[in-house]
């Protein structure tokens, strides 16, 4: 079986600044990988590269069988990225955002309500414009979009940030549930202990590269 993510000496630039300076990485299908690293080490860039948002400058990269240097567009329908930004339209309601995202990625629109219910966004909140939500509620809406789309590869950038205790438990159970369905999850987190309990493997990023994987961390 081909790995879900395969990078070899990947270089990604922002202008003239190398975000990734030759990162090599392999994540198998169905794995939950935890990416660690200091601020500015390249964690977010790694996720954005896997989501097909950043062009590969040098090196090779394959995600879900798509060659990153050839075709990033068809990859994007199959990945879900939860970033620092939530990709939501402020003026639209939670429900409208969900339905738009589902229609855009060619999924069944009826998945919107169960997903919202799962993240306690049913009822009044479902018809509230995103502009009026709190930061935590937006985060949940973004998670609901992810859950409803159910992509093959989940890319979570600091998913726990800004969530309350209940939200964190929900997130943990979502990640566990997606693993049960055979999805691949890559998450960046500074909460090492918490993330370690969720993940199969730790990947350490520094200086725009993936460091040798520490042995003995399961």
């Amino acid at each position, binding site marked *: 079986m081909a790995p879900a993510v395969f990078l070899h000496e990947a270089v990604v630039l922002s*202008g003239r600044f190398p975000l990734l*300076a030759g990162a090599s990485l392999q994540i198998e299908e169905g794995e939950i990988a935890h990416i660690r690293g200091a601020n500015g080490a390249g964690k977010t860039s790694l996720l954005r590269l896997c989501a097909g948002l950043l062009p590969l400058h040098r090196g090779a990269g394959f995600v879900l069988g798509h060659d990153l240097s050839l075709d990033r567009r068809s990859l994007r329908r199959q990945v879900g990225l939860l970033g620092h930004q939530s990709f939501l339209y402020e003026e639209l309601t939670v429900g409208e955002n969900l339905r738009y995202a589902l229609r855009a990625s060619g999924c069944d629109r009826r998945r919107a309500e169960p997903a919202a219910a799962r993240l306690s966004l049913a009822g009044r909140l479902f018809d509230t414009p995103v502009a009026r939500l709190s930061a935590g509620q937006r985060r949940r809406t973004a998670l609901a979009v992810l859950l409803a789309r159910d992509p093959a590869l989940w890319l979570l950038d600091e998913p726990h940030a800004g969530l309350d205790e209940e939200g964190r438990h929900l997130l943990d159970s979502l990640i566990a549930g997606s693993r049960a369905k055979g999805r691949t999850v890559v998450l960046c987190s500074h909460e090492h202990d918490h993330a370690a309990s969720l993940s199969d493997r730790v990947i350490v990023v*520094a200086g725009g590269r993936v460091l040798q994987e520490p042995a003995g961390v399961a």
Partner: protein
Amino acid sequence: MKSNRILRLTGALGLAGVVATFWLGLFVTPNAEFFGSLVRLLYVHPSMAWVAFLAYGMAFLSSLLYLWPRTRHPRFDHLAGASAEVGVVFTGLTLVTGSIWGRTTWGVWWTWDPLLTTTALLFVLYLGYLALRRVPGDPEVVARRSAIAALIAFIDVPIVYFSVTWWRSLHQPPTVNLASRHLYVHGIMAFTLFLSFASFTLVYAWLTAQRYRLYALAEKEADEGLDLALEERRAEGVPA
């Protein structure tokens, strides 16, 4: 280097041609019956306009070559940028010399003559293109963005020219323009005119090549910077 010698030859020929054109234009050719000495402007103005259009055509072609995936190469982006910039210089000169022509023949610095109006629109159109080129960013991104802008701008040229011409001709009887005047052209005048076109085209080639070299140098500089930047970036990950 062979290309270097060709370039130097081009520059020398262009310079010599321009000097000869000026000498012929100012001192040798006779005055025309109708225009008097003003006919001498004929040896600089139309060739400016011709070179400007040539430059924009060149920028358009190389932008297309850049956008076409099989021929995509930074050199076409550089050529497009260089050619457009030289084109803007020549367009500016077209406007100034055209304006002088207008002042002397019609008594006004500006008329809404179709060619002059089209040229003025071209000038602002490509000023915008150059402004877009100057916005910093990932070189590939800048190149692609600029190539598309060059495409949009160049496609506009015939539409602008056609609509401006029609706009004028509906309004009032056709204005005095160079083509509609019966000029009795002497042999020496025709030769000077031809020489002017040829030598300014050579000047265009030389300037574009120089501008292109500047782009190449800037890219070389950035490339050397990249290797250093990669080193530095990797060094961040090594604990001190």
